[in-house]
């Protein structure tokens, strides 16, 4: 719901009436006396609601006034209607008259019915018409209740109760006995507060709300008055088309990387384990390869065409190849490496792209990855990785820390720290923690120098720095979103209402 704006500072020129206002004033002149609103609406042929808003405008222009009056409406109840011919106490007295002035109460009940008899006896006693002693009722006097019945008849159908009846004790008794129901209703009457003559002048000039091509073309714009815009009413809500805020965040990273001279690369979501794990020197029984953590699809890839890589992978895994490493000392399986899976990180892509590539290379990818997680506020089975590699003569761990600092600063993070870490395919390994104002420290990336075993597998002769980062996590901290599912929201309203200005928070910590 939208808040109503307070009314202020709008100067309304009384002589500028819209065509609908003119119609109302015309009708009021014609009727010539105060008229009830619903009746007026009927006469003009518009809804009462529509009329009310026009009346508000006329009121504010001091042309009319609306007078509220309340009135009482009465109607007999079901019980009252059954007494139209005679009231219970009348029936009791008539019965007694018939049987000679006295009868046992039980006898009365038997012939009038239990409830009529009981009500009748009580009221007859109250009126002093009968006396009851030892179970016998004796008639003392009786006068028919003509007026009661007359009033009941008057209210057989609903009607207004005028003042004289309202104050009548008989009417009041009937109301009290719930034989007549009353309710109060309010009515609003409209009355011109200018003279009919003044009103006629007011409506003689035509005011229009829209300047049209026709008015301009015919020159008729000179004959009309353009009404001031209604600045009080709120406009209808419209939503701009807009880019998704999370994709804007990704675009921002893309810009940063391109400025640093990195080229974007791509690969499929469905890849053999070979790319996801084996080329990164992750042993085939490594826990992260467990099917509880990754998502797999039916079947195997035909990786025979990557014969060179396979040869090197096998040698390095089994005994270190010629990398100077001991390897993992187990029997490497080609079948396991061929198994198809949904990539679980994009280092699978950056590493693969280094195979057979001539240095120097600066590569990055921002792409979706998949894990076997059920969605909850902190987990999504699918999220976005930002990975990069750099292969250059003279690249070192020290330069990697420098590059990571450059990236963090460029995306607006001024305070960060590095922590030693472990990843199976980098050595040394490092985790970066960023300070996000209003949020605190969060882990933003893992990075390191590709292990010599990995370089051997990739056929790379130079040191390679690599990093990977969960984009959602950082975006959530920056945008102040505490549920990762909102980034993939199926609620269009959430995206519509997410203010574009929030992206500026990135560069103003």
């Amino acid at each position, binding site marked *: 719901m939208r808040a109503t704006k307070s009314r202020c500072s709008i100067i309304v020129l009384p002589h500028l009436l819209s065509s609908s206002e003119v119609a109302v004033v015309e009708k009021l002149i014609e009727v010539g006396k105060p008229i009830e609103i619903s009746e007026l609406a009927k006469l003009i042929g518009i809804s009462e609601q529509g009329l009310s808003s026009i009346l508000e405008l006329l009121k504010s222009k001091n042309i009319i006034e609306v007078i509220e009056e309340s009135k009482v409406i009465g109607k007999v109840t079901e019980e009252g209607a059954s007494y139209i011919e005679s009231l219970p106490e009348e029936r009791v007295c008539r019965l007694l008259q018939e049987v000679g002035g006295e009868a046992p109460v039980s006898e009365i009940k038997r012939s009038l019915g239990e409830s009529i008899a009981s009500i009748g006896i009580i009221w007859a006693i109250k009126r002093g018409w009968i006396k009851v002693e030892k179970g016998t009722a004796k008639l003392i006097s009786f006068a028919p209740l003509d007026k009661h019945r007359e009033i009941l008849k008057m209210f057989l159908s609903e009607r207004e109760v005028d003042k004289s009846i309202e104050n009548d004790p008989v009417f009041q008794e009937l109301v009290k006995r719930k034989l007549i129901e009353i309710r109060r209703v309010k009515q609003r009457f409209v009355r011109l507060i200018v003279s009919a003559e003044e009103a006629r002048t007011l409506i003689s000039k035509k005011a229009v709300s829209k300047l049209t091509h026709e008015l301009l073309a015919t020159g008729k714009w000179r004959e009309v008055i353009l009404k001031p815009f209604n600045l009080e009413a709120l406009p209808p809500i419209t939503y701009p*088309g807009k880019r998704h805020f999370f994709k804007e965040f990704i675009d921002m990273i893309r810009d940063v990387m391109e400025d640093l001279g990195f080229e974007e690369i791509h690969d499929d979501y469905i890849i053999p384990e070979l790319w996801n794990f084996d080329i990164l020197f992750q042993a085939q029984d490594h826990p992260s390869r467990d099917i509880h953590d990754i998502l797999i699809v039916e079947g195997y890839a035909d990786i025979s065409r990557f014969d060179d890589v396979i040869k090197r992978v096998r040698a390095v895994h089994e005994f270190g190849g010629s990398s100077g490493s001991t390897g993992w000392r187990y029997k490497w399986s080609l079948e396991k490496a061929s198994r198809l899976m949904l990539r679980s990180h994009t280092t699978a892509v950056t590493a693969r792209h280094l195979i057979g590539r001539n240095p120097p290379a600066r590569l990055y990818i921002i792409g979706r990855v998949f894990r076997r997680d059920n969605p909850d506020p902190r987990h999504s089975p699918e999220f976005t990785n930002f990975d990069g590699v750099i292969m250059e003569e003279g690249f070192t*761990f020290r330069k990697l820390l420098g590059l990571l600092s450059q990236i963090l600063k460029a995306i607006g993070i001024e305070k960060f720290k590095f922590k030693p870490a472990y990843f199976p395919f980098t050595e040394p390994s490092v985790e970066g923690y960023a300070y996000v104002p209003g949020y605190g420290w969060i882990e933003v990336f893992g990075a390191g120098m590709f292990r010599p075993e990995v370089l051997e597998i990739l056929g790379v002769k130079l040191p390679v720095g690599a990093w990977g980062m969960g984009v959602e996590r950082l975006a959530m901290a920056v945008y102040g979103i505490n549920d990762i599912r909102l980034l993939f929201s199926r609620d269009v309203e959430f995206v519509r209402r997410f203010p574009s200005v929030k992206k500026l928070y990135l560069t103003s910590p």
Partner: protein
Amino acid sequence: MPVVRVRPETLMRLTGINSIEALRHTLFNLKCESEVGEDGQLAIEVQSDRIDMFSVEGIAKAVRLYLGIDKPINIKLKGAPFKVYVKPPAKRPFIAVAAVTNVGLDEEKLRLLIEFQERLHNTFGRNRRKVAIGLHDLDKLPSAELEYKDVNIDETTMIPLHDFRRMSIRQVLESTEQGSLYGSIALNGNLHPAILSGGEVISLPPVINSDITRLSERTRNILIDVTGTDANAISIVLNSIIHALTFYGGEVLGAVIIYPDKAVLTPDLSSRIMRVDLSFVRYWLGIEGESSRIVDALMRMGYNVKTITHDYIDVEIPYYRGDILHQVDIVEDIAIGLGYENIGIEEIEPKPLIRKKLTKQAVISIVRDVLVGLGYVELNTLTLVPRKLAEDLGFNDVVSIVNAPSVEINALRSMLLQSIIQVLRNSQYIPQPVKVFEVGEVVVPCHECYNRWRNEVKVCWAIMDSETRFEEVHATLYALMSELGLAENLSLRPCNMSLFTEGRCANIFVADANIGFMGEVQPEKLEKIGILYPITLAELSIDSIFSVLANKIKPSLQT
């Protein structure tokens, strides 16, 4: 990652550091994140490569070395009084045994030790499949002569840990909780590996120990057995346990393991010598370290330095470090020993990319600009979709996920519209019209691809309103194609897709290339998936548009 939980006072006592913040700072520099939980315990996240730090004692030792409180030392076997006769069990052929004296358990030490054991089982031991550990009160051991072999599960009996009944191995496997969890790992028909001492089963690896040698708060000396499928892995695990237990100053006793073809002495506490080339250190880390700084860093990480020359350093790898595969692992320890903050940073030179003008990203950018300009709201949806929804919409080519955790995410979309229709279904009660679009990737079958499926970049836009808005979707197509310079080659041809009402859809062609389709979603489909508002949509392949553009623009650039 494994988490070690310990009372802060305990760790402060073991390390001799009195400030929890100083302790946490040191742990941070040793790869470990930590926090004090609500229960007052310090939770330390240890890294899976350093199993020697899976124990509180191992952490304390690493901290003391790092701060220079302790110097690296070697330990030596104090004899090998145990003999283990092995008839290698088929599914679990290897065993290593050692004992540590004067451990002096108490309630807390016992609890930490059992937690350490479970941590090793769950991670490095691959849930006991690869490695399992048995811990025994040495003083309760029936005999120093042990056997390790497969036994008949019906003919052999034992008293399982924390029980008092003697039962057959079959009963142990079938009736105990441990038996149901781990009983199938090493079972081979009616045979199962067992360790016997004096003819009595003391352990049923990898399932359960015997109650006879149960550890208690009064245990002083501990016998360790480690069994598994990998001789190297069991040796590494045994050494990490010895490393923890010798923290209290006890001695290590070894065992001669007698296999049918050879005899082996366990544990192997010898320290390997590895050469670290100083040029490699500089080449890899980018530091100009004098040898003395590097030697200091090495010692702080527990290495004894044997030889220092101008070109290299020979270091002794501590017996408990099974994670050192290559000199690069020692180079990392040098970096950690120096402290990452002391390595400094060196920024790289930004290199201007020689940007190609026509990239897929550039096409995507135009597409997004046009759609946003025409009032469409961009979406960011999951590629994962429910298989049933795709099928209800008439698409049977989606890739199924074998081990999906729920039916809501058991397939990958083959069309963007599969994701977008889910969004529209959830957006029926917001102000209409709902105009949305997304540029994203889908996965489609690819018979000629080595991996059988390929990604395709697509764009889909859709309008949901109280009535069909075909003209607007159609107008959007023309606007978009004009911006891409393809309007004149655009043609619409009749389509035949079960998603759409017959005669109310079109295939979209640019010259002879089919780049997509558009149409009004058939009422029956809408009804089936629970949508009460008409939806009109278009879906185009950005990959196809890109190749059309690439072919079109290339010749003109050449002239």
